[in-house]
């Protein structure tokens, strides 16, 4: 990582901090649980990183095992996270109809 690359990464990081706090600043308490679950699913994107390290060629047995475990855990996180959030939010959709 050269200093230039690091600075670009840091810039992206700083901007994302502001976006992250701005975007959810007005969330009602009703949505706290689904929002926690939804953001939880988003960090399942770590599967990208897991695939990149698991896919490296010519590595030993230890790295193969670590990479494989990382892929299993990350996939569970991303798939389970989005499905469970969708299940929760599906119920929110029903509300207005039930009220009528």
């Amino acid at each position, binding site marked *: *990582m050269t200093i230039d690359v690091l600075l670009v*990464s840091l810039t*992206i*990081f700083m901007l994302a*901090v502001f976006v*992250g*706090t701005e*975007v*959810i600043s*007005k*969330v009602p*308490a009703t*949505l*706290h*649980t*689904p*929002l*926690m679950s939804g953001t*939880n*699913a*988003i*960090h*399942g*994107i*770590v*599967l*990208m*990183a*897991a*695939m*990149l*390290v*698991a*896919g*490296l060629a*010519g590595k030993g047995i230890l*790295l193969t095992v*670590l*990479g*494989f*475990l*990382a*892929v299993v*855990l990350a996939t569970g*996180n*991303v*798939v*389970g*996270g*989005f*499905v*469970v959030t969708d299940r*929760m*939010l599906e*119920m*929110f959709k029903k*509300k*207005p109809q*039930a*009220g009528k």
Partner: protein
Amino acid sequence: MQIPSYIPQIIYIIAAILIIVGLKRLSSPATARVGNQIAAVGVALALAITILNSEIQDYLWIGVGVVIGGIAGYIMARRVQMTAMPQMVALFNGMGGGAAALVSASEYLHSQTVPGTSENFAVLLTTLLGLIIGSLSIAGSVVAFGKLQGLISGRPITYGGQQVVNGILAVVIVGFSLYLLFLQTNSVPAFVAIAAAALILGVAVVLPIGGADMPVVISLLNSFTGLAVAMTGFVLNNPVLIISGTLVGASGTLLTQLMSKAMNRSLANVLFGAFGSAGGPAAAGVAGGAAAVPLRETSAEDAGTLLAYSRSVIVVPGYGLAVAQAQQTVRELAEVLEKRGVDVRYAIHPVAGRMPGHMNVLLAEANVPYTQLKEMDEINSEFPQADVALVIGANDVTNPAARTNPQSPIFGMPILNVDQAQNIIVIKRGRGTGFAGIENDLFANPKTMMLFGDAKDALSRLVSAVKAA
């Protein structure tokens, strides 16, 4: 086929936009579901383009891992009861944290085999941060899961010298990290020591926190995992990972603060509250005083008659309702009351259930009309006009001590003013204390009638009683 290198970059940008837009939509009730789906598409897009990355040579274990993890995650997410949602989120969060830690470990070990790569200070620093934060997150999440699932006691677990042990662990982590960064970059034992200390510290920090505070802890660990993922983005020089991880880290931190605020606790108080001794004698004093007052028990018939002939009823649902799976039965009771012309509304405390907003999800699942659910600020002024407040398996959020007794551990927490209703019926499983482990003065109130029993059973007896009245 060789794809030009800028194509994946462009798709990564699109993925990042979708994730941000999805998160934005997630924070408004009308658009939340679509928001979640948009974010899912964004993540899927980023993952799909990653598979085509030329650095990936070995697809076998990726394929097997994705199938196993995907099926396990899907089945767990479909089967889990809505009441068990907090521990489910904790578990998924732990998996993400674990993955980030494993990625960091793989990166470090891999760099050991390629001479000259681990000398880069920034790479090593972010690798270590990913390892430490990810390890804290998975260890803490597993303990949080165990506590909420009832595998470990929900009570704060404390022992002498706890802070000293935590301090030593922190020193080990920081010390070996500095050693790796400045003295000897190639030391696998030091790296392993950091990982082990971070895992133990994660357990040690969460163990003394009471079960009632777990949602705040899970939210905090959620933002930790986000940060750990962002760190892997630095290491792999991948903007989408940095953006997504940081988004979760930042929004998770804000969400954690909002949750603490809803409980009127500071984050520091949640994390380290168990170490203070203030709660002990004060809580014991309250318990001693309240135990002397006999509680007034009632029968389902009497309580049912009271409900049937009242004009307005406010239902206060708590976790006991959810545990007994009584959401459907409470809706049934509301319906028979409404047929008699009784005005029924639900008072939802911000932390009713186990997580903020949890009770809304549970009642929505039982098809309770959205319009009848009232938030605390909205309904609190109406309790004095209510004929009956029906408290079902809620305890600490109705405890007037939070308003009146500065000695109480929950003093200052916003509560529902149930004690101001004309009559109060409390359905409660047993005579024990609530999640916070303190006596509730409300139960000793002369206006209060106690209906002991399982919430679902008690409610169906109330339904029959109202029908008979």
